[in-house]
């Protein structure tokens, strides 16, 4: 039996040497698709390759993308959070009320961040302390959080934001580089380091692959998940700051229906919904891919819903492809 094992190692090594493994990776497949879509866009619309047009398009996805990053961690540890859009709403409401009494950007933003973080902590506590599946908890908190904004705001809007607040959602840090987009890039790098280069990241993958073994190895799984949910809450509030600033106002309907968009970004990025695998690079490429598809179709005035068909079909095809290839290869092999 040992012999068999050894020989199977050898064949694997040969496979690996003949072509570097990243060629077949999910990320390169996505990247190729993204490049393809980019060129199609160039052909489809004369307005696409315009610096302003590209720059404006980044505003459409940056906030969602910022949430997709921590959400990737949630999905890697086999959980899910569908209350993200509602956390944005509640956090934005907190900022709106703070803005009624003060012009201090620091206070306004802190209020939002504190509320967002608390929402994340509530999710995390319910999930880890009471051992309730995350999907169930967050279906509940999704209604609860947004419900609270309805109670607080009713049919009113909060729009007493100071002039300077508009920077977060509308400002530029360099020519054509919006503050939102720049923040997304910076946060993406931070998450890349967190997930790929730290103990925390390693533990995240360990929990995702085998929560029992991770627990038996002395990892405090509950605490780890709690931290991840708190992170989601926090970054929802960051997104809330940007979105609120971009809209210049807060309504209870803010960010309605975003949760499924964000989950789609993560899954398309190659994060397995079953947990344990996926990278930040993949998520970032998926963000760009979805951004390009949306802006390209937008420029030729295709209605948003047709875009959602394309994204939905892409999601299914792209997840099904590796399995289909595997089966084809097996068939050929036999």
């Amino acid at each position: 039996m040992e012999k068999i094992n050894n020989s199977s190692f050898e064949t694997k090594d040969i496979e690996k040497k003949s072509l570097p493994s990243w060629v077949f990776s999910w990320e390169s497949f996505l990247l190729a698709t993204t490049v393809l879509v980019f060129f199609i866009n160039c052909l489809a619309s004369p307005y696409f390759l315009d610096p302003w047009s590209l720059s404006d398009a980044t505003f459409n996805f940056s906030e969602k993308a910022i949430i997709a990053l921590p959400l990737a961690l949630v999905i890697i540890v086999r959980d899910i959070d569908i209350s993200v859009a509602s956390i944005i709403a509640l956090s934005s409401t907190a900022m709106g009320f703070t803005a009624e009494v003060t012009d201090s950007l620091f206070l306004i933003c802190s209020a939002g961040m504190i509320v967002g973080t608390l929402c994340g902590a509530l999710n995390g506590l319910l999930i880890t302390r009471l051992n309730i599946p995350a999907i169930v908890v967050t279906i509940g908190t999704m209604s609860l959080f947004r419900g609270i904004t309805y109670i607080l705001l009713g049919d009113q809007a909060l729009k007493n934001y100071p002039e300077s607040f508009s920077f977060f959602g509308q400002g530029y840090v360099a020519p054509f580089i919006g503050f939102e987009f720049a923040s997304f890039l910076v946060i993406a790098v931070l998450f890349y380091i967190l997930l790929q280069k730290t103990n925390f990241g390693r533990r995240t993958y360990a929990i995702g692959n085998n929560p029992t073994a991770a627990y038996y190895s002395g990892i405090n799984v509950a605490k780890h998940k709690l931290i991840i949910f708190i992170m989601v809450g926090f970054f929802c509030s960051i997104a809330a700051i940007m979105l609120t600033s971009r809209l210049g106002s807060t309504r209870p309907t803010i960010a309605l229906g975003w949760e499924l968009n964000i989950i789609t970004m993560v899954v398309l990025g190659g994060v397995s919904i079953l947990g344990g695998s996926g990278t930040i690079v993949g998520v970032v490429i998926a963000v760009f891919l979805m951004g390009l598809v949306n802006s390209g179709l937008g420029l030729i005035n295709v209605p948003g819903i047709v875009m959602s068909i394309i994204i939905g079909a892409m999601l299914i095809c792209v997840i099904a492809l590796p399995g289909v290839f595997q089966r084809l290869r097996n068939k050929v092999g036999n």
Partner: protein
Amino acid sequence: MKQLLKNREAQLALVILSLLAMIGAIIPDFLAISNLLGVYTDTSILIILALGQMLVIITRCIDLSIAANVALTGMVVATINSLYPDFPVPVIILIGAGFGTLLGMLNGWLVWKMKIPSIVVTLGTMAIFRGAVFLISKGAWINAHQMSATFLEIPRYVFLGLPILGWCSVIVIAAMYYFTRHRQLGRKIYAAGNSPTAAYYIGVDVGKKQFIAFTISGLLAGIASYLWISRYAVAYVDIANGFEMLVIASCVIGGVSIAGGTGTVIGCVLGALFLGIINNALPVIGISPFWQMAISGSVIILAVIANSRSERKVGRIILRKAVQNAS
């Protein structure tokens, strides 16, 4: 009696009764038979969809596309009716049921044969189905005046005090009860969800059972779509948008475990009724509409906390004295 109180369905029924008592204390009229029947009728569609969703959840899957299925099938049904007003309505209903079933089968097939996790499949098909509604309708609404009178009248026809719409859900409940309790296929669906490995050992094809669950869920969505369209007398892209969450919430409140393998028709119906009563009662007791969402959210959370308490893993019982205590 003690045994009865341990039963989750009995607990939920008790909660519903006390909820009704509370509402009745504020608005006695709410408890009038006619009003309760009205509330039931109003909840019928939710019940039908929740029962489909329940089967899917029992097999360890989830169907996020169920509301989009209602919208797409509904648009197909409404389009046929508006283009060919003389086309017999029963045939239209059959077409709707068939079309919904096909959509369910598509989900099931992707889960079964393509081995894609159901949440990904239905996230995708949800977007696709809704988009398809737009493509069929070009975004336009189909309104009451474009539908034929029979088309609109059938579910409203009152028979023994209850509109046909209500009877539909009664029939679906009875059929599902029979199916899940007394048919081999129904029981195998539970077995497949409870322990896929063990199910495999006794010759149950788990993937196929998931396919069947999705198919039935699609069939029920198809039936519900006609009821929905004719009840609200309008068809448009956004119909039932977000309704999937309400459907899933009904299941969860009714004690259907997201981990699969458990959940009963009665529990699920009670879960849907619970939400239905709350949704109907809030406007009536004069709670500001702005409170509704937060209240349903809290109710869902409280229900799952209660369920998780009663469901807590017993663990293995090795000690003799513990065995005796348990029995």
